[in-house]
């Protein structure tokens, strides 16, 4: 890493840029993930489409490890930057206001990015334990994975957990997506309205999408 790049990455603006970039890529991943999940609806009882999808992934062979590693890196960088930024932000106001109102485009989502982020991280770890590492270091076979999905989501507590998880992801993205545009410098009257709407829409789609499977499971798999 050259000195210039290091300086860029350690600066406030650089960190925000990385935050936005990793966020974007993670959103892209989640869209693919959601599409994969949607294949569950094709064959609710046997999950044939879902299994076929996972099997295709397995065809990638060792390359899937590269993808997994890349994904983990994205998450890691996103989380690491978030921790640094949040720590800096907290340090920037050591004495809080007795009374502080919020205004501008401050929303529940924007104010609680760290909280939703931490919860999502926690949820993600559980999610990985549930599915990715259910058989140890090696990913479970496609058919086993489907069985595991049925098993976990049959439990109303876990189903509820995944509903909340999905909603948190949606809330987080609804601010994050829009925010990343500003961090990249993409702010123009012609696109702002569209970005804002897309951001909310994306959040809603992800939340509804991810939350729909546990609900389906509660209805169909019990």
């Amino acid at each position, binding site marked *: 890493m050259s000195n210039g790049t290091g300086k860029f990455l350690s600066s406030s603006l650089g960190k925000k840029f990385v935050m936005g970039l990793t966020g974007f890529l993670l959103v892209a991943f989640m869209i693919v993930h959601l599409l994969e999940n949607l294949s569950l609806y094709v064959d609710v009882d046997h999950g044939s489409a879902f299994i076929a999808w996972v099997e295709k992934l397995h065809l990638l062979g060792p390359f899937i490890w590269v993808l997994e590693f890349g994904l983990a890196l994205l998450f890691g960088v996103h989380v690491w930057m978030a921790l640094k930024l949040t720590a800096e932000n907290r340090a920037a106001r050591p004495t809080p206001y007795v009374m502080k109102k919020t205004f501008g485009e401050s929303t529940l989502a924007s104010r609680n990015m760290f909280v939703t982020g931490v919860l999502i991280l926690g949820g993600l770890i559980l999610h990985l334990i549930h599915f990715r590492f259910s058989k140890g270091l090696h990913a479970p076979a496609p058919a086993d994975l489907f069985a595991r999905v049925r098993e976990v989501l049959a439990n109303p507590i876990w189903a509820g957990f995944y509903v909340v998880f999905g909603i948190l992801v949606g809330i987080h993205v609804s601010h994050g997506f829009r925010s990343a545009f500003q961090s990249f410098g*993409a*702010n123009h009257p012609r696109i702002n309205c569209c970005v804002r709407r897309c951001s909310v829409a994306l959040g809603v789609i992800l939340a509804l999408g991810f939350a729909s499977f546990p609900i389906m499971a509660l209805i169909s798999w019990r």
Partner: protein
Amino acid sequence: MSGKRISLTLKVWRQESAKDAGKMATYEVKDINDEMSFLEMLDVLNEQLVTKGERPITFDHDCREGICGACGFVINGHAHSKEKEITVCQLHMRKFQDGETLVLEPWRAKAFPVLQDLMVDRSAFDRIQAAGGYTSVHTGSAVDANSILIPKVDADAAFDAATCIGCGACVASCKNASAMLFVGAKVSQFALLPQGQVERERRVKAMVERMDAEGFGNCTNEYECEAACPKGISVTNIARMNREFLKAAVTDQG
């Protein structure tokens, strides 16, 4: 002209010096003519305090017409009050109801240490300015003013960015105490003008570096700064700074 009389309860942050701990103190102000400005109301309270032998409330103020940027504190959780596009000195008592309680706090930021009561040290802004908020042109070396042609739209946009009064409301209102709007406005003014092109990359890098070193927070794109800015400076200036910074990182040497 109403000339109504109102009474208020003020809860004010009192702090003897930067080293001391502060606390909120409560004052009753009675029979205030609602044609007064907010700072005049504080003047009246201060004269009463002095007469009683109590130390008056300290706050920065100077021009009292919203242009110098000296004044500013938080009233009930809003920088410069909840009115749009004004500074505290432009606020009048007719905006308040009889019997209201108002909480007055200084700008809160690590980079703006409290000096006394509602007065804070904003010299961090001067240091950011010194880092690059200028064009390096010596007195006497300028070419004829009309040899630099500037499209009116660019001149107007640069002016909009240049109207910043350096009051610090953007920092005060940001949940992260970020100074991005202040820095973004200055970076934008020069980025939009031909005079600023020569030092464009160096400027944005130096100013951002200084801003970070001063201990301001990061931008989480919630635009509270824009809402609080008494001059209505747009967050598009922050976006422009982000672009400039990215471009500088890619193109500039060293």
